[in-house]
C-alpha cells in the first residue's frame, strides 16, 4: 500500500505484524509506515488494537511475527528514541507532579537540578504551573493526563507514541493542545504517532490518518489531509476540504458501528 512512500524517509516502519493474545487475534498482517517529521493518526473502533500496535512499536510487547523498525533499526525493546504517553496515564501515585514529570529523566540518570529544570518547563507548557508539589490523587483526570504528556515531552525523544493523549482534557484545553501539537510538528523534526477516537481531531492534526479495521486489525485506508496544512489554526476548522475529509472518514467508519 505504500508504493508511493518508498522515496519518503520513514522514521518508523511496521511490516506484516501479527499479534494474538491467546485466542484473541488483535493484529493480522498489519503494515504501516510513519514518515519522519510527520504526525500519523491511528483511527479505529474501540478494541481494534491501537494500543497494542503502539506498545509493539514502543518495544513493550513483542509481535508474534513481522518486522518493526525505528530509524531503520529493528525494534527489540524500549529505546531512548521513543517516548510513550499512556492511555491510563501510568503515574506514580506516591510521587509529586514534579517527580512524575521528571521520572523519565530520573531513570536516564539525569541529575536532580537539571531534570527538575527541564520538567519545570514542560509542566508550564501543559498548564500545570503551581501544581508541582501536588500528588496525582489531588488532580483531575485531565490534569493527570497532562502530567503524562509532560513526562513524555521532557525526555526529548524523536518519536512520540501518544495513546489518546487528549481524551480526558476539556474541550478548550483540547483545542489549545491540538494547536500546540501542530506547532510542535512544524517546529521540531519529531515523528508523532497519535491514537484518537475523534475524527475531527485526527483530520485536524494529522499529516496522515490511518483507518484501522475492527479486530483483527489491518489498515483499511490511509488519508493524507494536505490541502489545508498551510492555513492558520482557526480557519482550518472551516475549510471545505477539512470538512469533506471528516465526512468521508465518518462514512467509512460508520459501517463498523452499525
Amino acid at each position, binding site marked *: 500500500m505504500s508504493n508511493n512512500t518508498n522515496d519518503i524517509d520513514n522514521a518508523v516502519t511496521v511490516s506484516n505484524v501479527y499479534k494474538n493474545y491467546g485466542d484473541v487475534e488483535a493484529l493480522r498482517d498489519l503494515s504501516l509506515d510513519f514518515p519522519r517529521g510527520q504526525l500519523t493518526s491511528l483511527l479505529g473502533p474501540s478494541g481494534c488494537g491501537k494500543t497494542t500496535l503502539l*506498545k509493539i512499536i*514502543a*518495544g*513493550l510487547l513483542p509481535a508474534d511475527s513481522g518486522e518493526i523498525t525505528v530509524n531503520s533499526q529493528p525494534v527489540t*525493546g*524500549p*529505546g*531512548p528514541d*521513543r*517516548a*510513550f504517553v*499512556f492511555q*491510563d496515564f*501510568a*503515574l*506514580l*501515585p*506516591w*510521587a*509529586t507532579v514534579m517527580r512524575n514529570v521528571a*521520572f*523519565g529523566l*530520573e*531513570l*536516564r540518570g539525569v541529575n536532580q537540578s537539571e531534570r527538575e529544570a527541564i520538567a519545570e518547563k514542560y509542566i508550564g507548557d501543559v498548564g500545570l504551573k503551581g501544581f508541582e508539589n501536588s*500528588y*496525582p*490523587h489531588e488532580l483531575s483526570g485531565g490534569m493527570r493526563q497532562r502530567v503524562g504528556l509532560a*513526562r513524555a515531552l521532557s*525526555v526529548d525523544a524523536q518519536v512520540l507514541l501518544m495513546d489518546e493523549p487528549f481524551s480526558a482534557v476539556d474541550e478548550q484545553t483540547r483545542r489549545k493542545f491540538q494547536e500546540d501539537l501542530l506547532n510542535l510538528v512544524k517546529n521540531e523534526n519529531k515523528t508523532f504517532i497519535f491514537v484518537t477516537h475523534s475524527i475531527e481531531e485526527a483530520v485536524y492534526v494529522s499529516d496522515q490518518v490511518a483507518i484501522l479495521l475492527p479486530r483483527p486489525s489491518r489498515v483499511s485506508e490511509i488519508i493524507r489531509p494536505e490541502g489545508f496544512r498551510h492555513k492558520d489554526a482557526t480557519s482550518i476548522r472551516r475549510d471545505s476540504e477539512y470538512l469533506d475529509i471528516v465526512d468521508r472518514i465518518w462514512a467509512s467508519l460508520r459501517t463498523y458501528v452499525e
Partner: protein
Amino acid sequence: MIRYRSYLLTFLSAFIVLGSWEIAGRIPVSYSFPTFVETITAFWVLLLDGTMFVAYGETLKPLVVGVLISAFLGIGIGLTIGLSKKFDWLLSPVFVVMQTAPLAALIPLLVMIYGIGLTSKVFVVCIMAMPVIVLNTSGAVRNTPASIIEMGQAFLGTKRDIILKIILPAASPIIFAGLRLGVSAGFIGAILAELKITPTGVGDIISYSRSIADYPSMYAAIMSIILLAVIFLNVLERIENFLFKGTRQGYASE
C-alpha cells in the same frame, strides 16, 4: 479538633474496657481473675523491684533477634517470590505450611534438634512471624499495577530501578501491614517459647505466679507484653510514615 476527638474516643474506649475488667474482677467471674486495680498494683511491684526488667532482658533476646531475622529475611524472600515464578513455586508452599502448622506440636521437635537454648526460641518467633511477612510481601509485589511497571520499562528503567523506584514503593503499604502482623505474631511466639520450652523471662513470671496462685502478677505480666507490643507497633507505624510519606497519601483515593 478531629485529633482531639480521636484521643477522647481512645480514652473512652480504654475506660470502658478497663472499667468492665474492674467490675468483672470484683464480682468475681472467676477466682483466678483479678481486678484491674490489683493487676496494676502487681505491675508496679514487679516494675519497682526490678523483676520486670530482668525478665524483659531475657524475653527480648529471642524476640528482637527473631523479629529482625523475620523482617529482613521475610521481606527478601517475599520479594524474590513476588518477582520470580520459579521461586514462587519453590518457596510459597513452605510458608503456607509454616503459617498453618500447629506450632505447639513442632516445639518438641525443635527442642530435640536445637536444645532448649536461645536458638529454639528464636526459631519459634520466626515460625510465627515470618510467613505472614513473606506472603504479604510477595502478594504486594505481584499486585503492582502492570501499567506503572510498563511505564518504567518504556522510560528505560533498569531492572533495579523498576524494583527500587516502582515495585517497592507500590508494595510498601502492604509490606508494612505484613510487618505489623508479623511483629504481633512474634510477640506471641516469644511468650509461647518461654512457656513451652524453658520458663525464662516474662514467660517465667507467668508460669511461676500461676503456680503459686498469684493471679494479679500473672495478669500484670500478660498486660505488660500487650503494652509493649502496642508501643512497638506504634513505633513501626511512625517509621513507615517517615520512610514513605507520599505513598500513603497517594493511595488515599486511588
